[in-house]
């Protein structure tokens, strides 16, 4: 396996992945919008970004939905594991959750939309949170349960033998052991919800504008360097989150 070939494939792939992003970033500082070539350096578009109320509203909505969905799926997911830990009829129940990630998101979105319309639930942030929580559960439950199974039984047994109740054992022994996996999963679910586009497109109704939908409407109606500036900002944010994720990686076995 020639080293040159290997290096070539890898280099070109990473180039493929990053050239568009770099071009995007560079042109966010261009004094004139697309399709003008490079004319000069300016922070102008970033300034416009700061003043766009529509954008901030959409950003806020995405944030709210992501935080709620992540928290909800984490909490009820962990509680389900708690039920499992007490010896409830677990094996069957947990396999219920593996389907969430297998079906295409569009199918889920269509199903949810039809369901919500049928029982006249008003579409908006609440329905979005519900939908994203379904996605989130599909991550939380398998990952947390897998980690749960790996916990050394002797630790929990010792706790019980020493007089702690099952509840105390769960919250003081099992949970801390699960924590790194839970945090990593939470980050993953947060990002997936924040960037989510398909579910939002169908289930958000007309009142809730998320960041993805806002960008879509901008893409559909034309281009502006403000979008470049937005991409740059979001990229920095994502990189930061990935860094956090990596600092946890050493303590979890996600990869």
């Amino acid at each position: 396996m020639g080293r040159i070939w290997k290096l070539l494939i890898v280099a070109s792939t990473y180039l493929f992945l990053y050239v568009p992003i770099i071009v995007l970033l560079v042109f966010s500082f261009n004094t004139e919008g697309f399709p003008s070539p490079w004319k000069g350096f300016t922070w102008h578009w970033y300034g416009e970004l700061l003043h766009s109320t529509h954008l901030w509203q959409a950003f806020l909505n995405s944030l709210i939905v992501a935080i709620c969905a992540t928290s909800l799926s984490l909490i009820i997911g962990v509680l389900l594991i708690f039920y499992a830990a007490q010896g409830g009829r677990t094996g069957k129940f947990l396999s219920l959750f593996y389907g969430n990630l297998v079906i295409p998101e569009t199918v889920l979105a269509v199903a949810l939309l039809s369901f919500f319309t049928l029982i006249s639930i008003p579409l908006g942030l609440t329905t979005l949170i519900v939908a994203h929580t379904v996605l989130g559960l599909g991550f939380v439950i398998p990952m947390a349960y897998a980690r749960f199974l790996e916990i050394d039984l002797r630790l929990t047994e010792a706790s019980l033998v020493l007089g702690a109740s099952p509840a105390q054992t769960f919250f003081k022994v099992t949970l801390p052991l699960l924590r790194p996996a839970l945090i990593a999963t939470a980050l993953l679910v947060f990002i997936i919800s924040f960037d989510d586009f398909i579910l939002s497109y169908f289930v958000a109704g007309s009142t809730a504008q998320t960041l993805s939908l806002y960008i879509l409407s901008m893409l559909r109606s034309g281009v502006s360097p403000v979008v470049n500036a937005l991409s740059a900002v979001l990229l920095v944010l994502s990189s930061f989150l990935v860094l956090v994720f990596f600092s946890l990686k050493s303590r979890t076995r996600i990869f």
Partner: protein
Amino acid sequence: MKWFTRSLITISWLILIFSCLYLPKWEFLSNKDSLNVFAWGDILDPAAIAEFEKESGIKVNLNYYSSNEELLVKLKVTKGEGYDLIIPSDYAVLLLKNEGLLKELNYSKLGFLNRINPRLLHHNYDLENKYSIPYEWEIFGLGIDKDYFKDRPLIPSWKMIFDRAFVNYKIAMTNDPAEALPLAAFYLFKQVNPLNASQIQDVKNLLLTQKAWVEAYASFRGDYFLATKNCPVVFASSSYIWRTMKLFPFVDFIVPEEGSFITIENLCIPKASNKEEAVYKLINFLYRPHIIQRHFELFGFFPPTLDAFSTFSLDEKAKRWVYASEEDFSKFHFFRPIVSSQQLRDLWVELKE
């Protein structure tokens, strides 16, 4: 006993979850001192609304829809409840009127009626304008790249996008079958009436032939293709081209001589609305000259009144259409359903296949 308790617990959770889900609905309907407006994304300037709120003390909730269909569905489902002001297009007014979802307008409360451009009134969809008053309008035509046609032939005709003999460039076409079909039918048969089977086939063939030189089907991005010089000719509405013309001086707008299409956006009040005072205040506010002027400058839709321009100068091109004559208007047609919805959908999917 165990199962009884468990069922009770299950039901309690269900009640909790569903009451959270239905919460927005109750909030929405019980707000007495606010108005709910349902409109297109780019018709009302949020700043103008804010000005109204400050002046009148009435809170306005702006909700957006992205198509008349969405408006129709939403209003049918809620029987008109929940909204106080809506802005449907011409044919949507007709549909809503027939479903009995619109409230008759009280003309005594509207002080600006004599200022409205008379050519926008008394059309088929609401002959006496009992339920609707026009707020904005636009016409459809071709966006042109002047640079490209400096030395090339340019004729003000739909042949520029349909006739193989003329088209040796890429175009951008509308992505809405409800626009594309009537346009093709008009080009072929010079009228917009329901089609029989053989006519449908002709329309289909025309659109299929056209596909060869379509760069993209894009309802909202026509101006983008012009600005980036991707396509020298695009099918677009006047409002989009106006906005592009401001930024890119090489863009021009042509209305073909054979005639074209017009849409009029109207203000209507849903039947179930009970906020008379507030709504009429808002409507009167929206027709103030400087508000109309602002909307035109922002969005490019032609204004409903002719007096807004005494306060600022209008460029020649815009003047041409805003002050369009009786003869001009006789060549304008409304988009109308000319085939059944299922046929429309099937044709469009087949076209894209």
